[in-house]
């Protein structure tokens, strides 16, 4: 199986690569459009600031390519946020895959949310074997609002979408690569999704 991690300059890639290595899969870093299109599975990572990350996607043409991918795609953290319509972080538009906007947590809570929180209302094959209220590690100041495409929700400040799915596109706000055994199970589930392309 060919697993690609999109390398467009937005950090945190090594940890994801290592996590798949622990599962016995070599993930390849790539920013080549043909290679990404030909992969069986694609990881869309991201750590950092949304508007500058989106600019990097535009410069490489990936903003056009990613929404057309047919194989399973997993956005992680900022990757997931960039798959939404827009983000309040730097007031940028997103890829528009998920029909939801990304907002900032209010000042009634500590920002960023940093640490382990539970995911609930699970409804996707991505969460096979994961129990309701399982703990995941999160670090984020912005969140996707609760919406129809939510496949998991979490509570911090308000209830928000901590995972999203539309067709072959999956997004998780938490870091499965840093979320102990349960996080590894989610990555494993992603690897086992059917590839249609």
């Amino acid at each position, binding site marked *: 199986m060919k697993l690609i991690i999109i390398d467009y300059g937005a950090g945190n890639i090594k940890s994801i690569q290592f996590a798949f290595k622990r599962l016995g899969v070599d993930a390849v870093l790539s920013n080549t459009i043909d290679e990404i299109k030909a992969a069986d599975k694609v990881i869309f990572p991201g750590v950092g600031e949304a508007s500058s990350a989106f600019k990097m996607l535009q410069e490489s043409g990936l903003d056009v390519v990613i929404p057309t991918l047919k194989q399973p795609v997993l956005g992680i953290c900022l990757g997931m946020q960039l798959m939404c319509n827009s983000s309040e972080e730097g007031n940028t538009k997103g890829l528009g895959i998920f029909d939801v906007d990304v907002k900032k947590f209010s000042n009634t809570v500590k920002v960023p949310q940093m*640490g382990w929180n539970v995911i609930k209302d699970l409804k996707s094959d991505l969460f096979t074997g994961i129990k309701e209220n399982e703990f995941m590690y999160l670090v984020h100041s912005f969140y996707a609002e609760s919406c129809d495409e939510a496949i998991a929700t979490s509570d911090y400040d308000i209830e928000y979408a901590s995972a999203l799915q539309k067709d072959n596109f999956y997004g998780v706000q938490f870091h499965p690569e840093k979320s102990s055994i349960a996080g590894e199970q989610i990555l494993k589930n992603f690897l086992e999704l059917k590839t249609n392309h």
Partner: protein
Amino acid sequence: MLTKRIIPCLDIKNGRTVKGVNFVNLIDAGDPVVLAKQYAVLGADELVFLDISATLEGRKTMIEMVHQVAEQVNIPFTVGGGISSVENVNELLKWGADKVSINSSAVKRPELINELANKFGSQCVVVAIDAKQIEGEWFVHLAGGTIPTEIKLFDWAQEVEKRGAGEILFTSMDHDGTKAGFANVALAHLSSLVNIPIIASGGAGTMQHFVDTFTIGKADAALAASVFHFGEIPILDLKKELKNNNIPVRI
């Protein structure tokens, strides 16, 4: 609900843990990678590695250690000690560290916080503050608490938040090593002044001290070394005790 974090801290010198760690059934308690894996299994929420190597060779070994920890451990970890430039941080993050902690270098050149937050994002910038109370007022100290400054703790905490720190690791030099409890009054005041997470450090001796730092001290996380390393407080027992006191924890 976001849970309170329990963070063991390992001191590293030339790629080995120092001060010793006393786990049962460990073949090599000096190997930080072995220990990190053990702590992940035991329920630690995060780990901090503090590099106390004084030599360039020791620093290079630290990068290798970061690489190995990132490869083998499935929980987040922070690296601190001797970090003074964007290049230092770039290298540590490149090899898989999740966050870095800066201390004296931030006091000497506060712009470093802005530079790191802009380049890598606030989420990976922890500013460690060592402070001591002098005639009723808290002052920031440098070099492991040995050099006093005229900077006031609460002013500095607000400044680091403004400059883009994602988290504050506050160590009370008055409490560190005493095993008599955390500096909860100062911690609670810090929490009321800034809106980023605060890690309490210095003074852990009993499970009640952790309960107190989360309730009275309003801390978001608590860091300790020897009580965990020598098995005085097993992490799972601690978390159960916290849960019994209605403090949200990951078990």
